């Protein structure tokens, strides 16, 4: 505005970049990778890097969709059970029909139905989303346990392609993750509903004032999350090959952790499309580093928890300091 303001804005372009939500996790990831590249030669091998991404592809895929729910100011904790349930559908269709396409479509459809139900409970039923999706989480897990009481379900080798195959020399899970990421970018950047997601999460009151379709947008976000679970189910089941009723227990929290670690605010509005991928890869890199350095497996969760806690705390302190300066 004033000359001073403009000058500050120009010179502050760099600072503005630093204020972006994905800056801190990206900086942390690069720093971590740099340290690992020096200390652990095996880390930088292409195979290792690709396998890291392949390992986090399932979490990343679901997190990309869950990210939209969180950006819109809601939350979805049902993804763990939903992933398992979709895998069950995938397995059932694969075992009767075979192939990959039909099972995947069936799983995605199943996911869409449950996601839509979540969305309706939140928008029409006006149940707080954490409760609604917690209920779905428990119900689906219950069904899983009952259904799978017969034992372990395995997948015919031909139907494991989504989890194991390579296309163009790249693991299919990585391609799927990348594809979903592109779709998410397209949706969030280039559709009106996608832009509305950010607006609703940023200032719900103003969104209502302007007359944005809040209910429809949230319903869509929940449905997309369900569909992403269906898609990820093919990858997940393909990778593990055998499905137990307790599969993917606690997965929902890894999804939320990926979203939050990647820089999306849990209270909505603030964040980026790439956040969940960043967060998932960050977790993957940390776990990989522990494995490469022969850190006992028992330390994994502790170190992961500690890093998440330190990361979010530092970010909070950074914001506090910035707010005090302003």
């Amino acid at each position, binding site marked *: 505005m004033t000359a001073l303001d403009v000058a500050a804005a120009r010179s502050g372009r760099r600072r503005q970049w630093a204020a972006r939500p994905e800056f801190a996790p990206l900086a942390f990831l690069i720093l971590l990778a740099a340290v690992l590249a020096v200390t652990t030669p095996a880390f930088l091998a292409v195979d290792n890097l690709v396998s890291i991404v392949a390992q986090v592809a399932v979490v990343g895929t679901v997190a990309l969709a869950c990210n939209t729910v969180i950006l819109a100011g809601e939350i979805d904790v049902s993804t763990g059970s939903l992933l398992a349930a979709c895998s069950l559908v995938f397995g059932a269709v694969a075992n009767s029909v075979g192939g990959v396409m039909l099972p995947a479509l069936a799983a995605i459809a199943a996911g869409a139905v449950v996601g839509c139900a979540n969305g309706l409970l939140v928008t029409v039923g006006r149940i707080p989303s954490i409760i609604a999706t*917690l209920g779905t989480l428990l119900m689906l897990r219950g069904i899983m346990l009952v259904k799978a009481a017969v034992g372990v379900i395995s997948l015919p080798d031909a139907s494991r392609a989504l989890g194991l195959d390579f296309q163009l020399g790249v693991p299919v899970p990585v391609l799927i993750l990348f594809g979903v990421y592109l779709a998410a970018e397209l949706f969030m950047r280039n559709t009106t509903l996608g832009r509305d997601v950010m607006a609703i999460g940023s200032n719900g009151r103003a969104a209502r004032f302007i007359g944005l379709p809040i209910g429809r947008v949230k319903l869509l976000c929940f449905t997309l999350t369900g569909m992403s679970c269906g898609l990820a189910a093919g990858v997940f089941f393909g990778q593990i090959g055998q499905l137990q009723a307790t599969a993917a227990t606690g997965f929902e929290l890894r999804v939320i952790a990926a979203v939050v670690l990647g820089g999306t605010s849990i209270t909505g509005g603030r964040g980026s499309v790439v956040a969940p991928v960043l967060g998932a890869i960050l977790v993957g890199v940390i776990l990989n580093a522990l494995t490469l350095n022969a850190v006992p497996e*028992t330390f994994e969760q502790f170190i992961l928890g500690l890093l*998440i806690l330190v990361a979010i705390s530092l970010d*909070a302190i950074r914001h506090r300091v910035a707010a005090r300066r302003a």
Partner: protein
Amino acid sequence: MTAISGTAIGKRAAAASSRTMLLAAFFVVEVAALGIFVPGWLTVDGLLDTSRIFIESGLLALGMTFVIITGGIDLSVASLLALVSVVIGFSHQAGLPLPVAMVLGIGTGVGCGLLNGAIVAYLGLHPLVVTLATMALFRGGAYVISNAAAYSEYPAWFTTIGGFYIGEVLPAQLPVFAVLCVLAWMILEKTPFGRRVYGLGENEQAVRFSGINVAHLKLKVYGLMGLLAALASIIETSRISTSRANMALGLELPVIAAVVLGGTKVTGGSGTIAGTLLGLLILSYLQDGLQFAGISSDWGLFITGALLVLGVLVNENAGRNRG
């Protein structure tokens, strides 16, 4: 509950007490129906014995009621339970006298609860995110300390805490739990601290303007949660006479479900111990009855989830009509 309407918590209290009555009626119908349709289930022994299982989550639910009334949430309770158990077990293994190990365990529980509270209170982070992180941290700590091994060399006196029956039928922990329930109810309804807990959940800013230190209040609430997690841990460890890192895996969700089914609003400011207790009893006995009838106990989770959604659906929409 109606007695307090003299001191008057108002509409919320009236709504809460009518909801409590509804839950109580539901519980009675449930037990009666199970008694009729599941022959042999409805016995005093059976009812009492089941309490051994749900008391541990019941203790967590008591603390969780306080946390959720303040408008917060704690996902780390089950992990903390495992951590405390492992701390007790492996410090005992390392040669610490068991009573000292237990004190150490309780200290761990309170300390970890305070850690949650401090981060929530002083950094202004959302409790969901904070306790999601400490959930992994505490569980991970349990794995590190135990090296993924189990410890079960507990002396006989210790295992009687969770396995002793008074007069052959009454599990020893039941009276303990009953006393703690009454204590929690009195603290919540009758003390200045309880008043502040309600006030914090309804309007944090007004609490600050009333000259109350909000940060200290949050510290106390999460610290109390940690203490109760430690007590639950001791009882469970004693009952199964084993400490291992994967104890109580996923227990936080049914605990939250019981509290919310009991009428505590996740947005804070309302909720009762009686409601939580009823939520707990309804879920536990339904599961127990079905299991007794030979229906897979796995339906329990489904029913928990369905009741949770239905209960809150009824609650929210009934509240809307009234308001």
